[in-house]
């Protein structure tokens, strides 16, 4: 069991409250996932000449040092915003250069996300602790996904927590369990996809990354996933402009969606959506099995 939540704001006036709304939804999903919690949040997109990365350090880390060193060695402006065990790095350079530099100089750091708007935060522990640790109520944004994890297929660590990045400004959260993830992981590694853990959901994220790299649209990649992924899943996939939802054809894992003039939301259970303003008058429906739903700006 796990809990998934997603919110997409139609009314810009709510943007400053995104973190607060997401936190309320996430905490409501604590029973479904007390092992770890995580979010992907889209906000303040950087200019095309810049990139934004979320970095994670398992141990205490001198972020200031990294900032000075990177600015000097790559000769670029570097901004760092530390939040809990994570830091958002914004640099006036392309992602590939930053990642290459990090790999050599700080191989112990993990890149949680890369793109222009996405930020990913995730950590072991109860959703409420996560919300406080990462000060979610401070965060603005246009849309976000969240996940509370009850581990079934692999260990409880920050690395095994969701969301998983699936490429530039893309991420995935998963409720369910995949049964062919070992075979798929081998196949994806043969295709050169970097999969770092034995987690089944990371394989789903890697699969999407591979298909998008091969030229599929997100819709096409998800349609193909219906054929290639075996197991139970409700996925929510965050994109730069919105989010997508897909349930497997058996659809054992729950999902509910709701829409008002101000927002569109999805969650594993209605009680997470009930936390949102105006939920009592929202249009509410259950997404059909094997059907791709997308929202975007």
């Amino acid at each position, binding site marked *: 069991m796990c809990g998934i939540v997603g919110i997409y704001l139609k009314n810009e006036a709510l943007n400053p409250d995104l973190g607060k709304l997401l936190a309320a939804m996430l905490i409501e999903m604590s029973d479904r996932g007390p092992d770890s919690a995580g979010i992907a949040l889209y906000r303040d997109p950087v200019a095309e000449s810049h990139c934004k990365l979320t970095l994670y350090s398992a141990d205490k880390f001198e972020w200031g040092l990294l900032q000075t060193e990177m600015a000097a060695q790559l000769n670029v402006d570097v901004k760092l915003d530390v939040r809990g065990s994570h830091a958002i790095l914004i640099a006036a350079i392309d992602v590939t250069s930053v990642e290459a530099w990090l790999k050599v100089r700080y191989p112990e750091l993990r890149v949680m996300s890369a793109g222009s708007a996405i930020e990913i935060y995730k950590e072991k522990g109860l959703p409420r602790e996560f919300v406080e640790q990462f000060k979610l109520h401070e965060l603005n944004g246009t849309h976000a996904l969240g996940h509370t994890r009850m581990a079934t297929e692999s260990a409880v660590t920050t690395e095994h927590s969701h969301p998983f990045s699936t490429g530039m400004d893309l991420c995935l959260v998963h409720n369910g369990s995949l049964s062919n993830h070992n075979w798929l992981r081998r196949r994806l590694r043969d295709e050169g996809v970097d999969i770092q853990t034995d987690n089944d959901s990371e394989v789903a994220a890697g699969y999407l990354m591979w298909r998008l790299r091969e030229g599929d649209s997100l819709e096409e990649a998800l349609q193909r996933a219906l054929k290639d992924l075996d197991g139970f899943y409700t996925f929510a996939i965050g994109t730069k402009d919105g989010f997508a939802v897909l349930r497997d054809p058996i*659809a054992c894992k*729950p999902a509910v969606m709701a829409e008002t003039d101000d927002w569109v939301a999805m969650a594993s259970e209605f009680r997470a959506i009930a936390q949102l303003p105006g939920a009592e008058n929202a249009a509410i429906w259950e997404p059909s099995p094997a059907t791709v739903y997308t929202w975007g700006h």
Partner: protein
Amino acid sequence: MAEFDLNSDSVRDLNQFLHDTSTGKSTVTNPGGRHCIACGIDAPLQVSVEGHVGYYCAGMNKTADITITGNAGPGVAENLMSGSVRVRGNASQYAGASGHGGTLIIEGDASARCGISMKGVDIVVAGNVGHMSAFMAQTGRLVVCGDAGDFLGDSIYEAQIYVRGKVGDLGADCIEKEMTAEHVKELAGLLASTGVDAVAGEFRRYGSARKLYNFDIDHADDY
């Protein structure tokens, strides 16, 4: 009349009250998608839940009449024994699962696995039902005024299924059967008793071909 506001009262206190009460009406407001609201009642109470409920609302109900003015999450009225449960909105998956008796009325749609393993309950859905509905249904009636999804009545025993709209692929051992005058009369009675406005003669009947659940000696070598 007892009133519970679940923004301030707990579901546990609500259910304890309903278990300790033998008669009367209760109203529940602000259910907020919480689980197990009005579960395990064993008395002829009238309970009105005003809003959307989460998992297992009205589960195991005996003799009470429970109305949910909203949508219901997974497993509404699961293992219903008697009495009635009415959902004014839509119901999520496995509505009325393993119900032994009583009546479940869903005025909207029900999603997958509606009436799975039903054992005597009558389920009337004014809208559509999702895939795998009436899976392994043993006895009772599932009435669908709209369409039914794929694999309807898979591995069905002796339950009766009536569908007015389109049916996807039928499940294993489920076949269409003749709708006799007797069946029309019986269905009309059920529809009238539930207040669902539909003409019994427009329904088609489905049930078991009885080829799957009887052991066939000629197939012994297959095992």
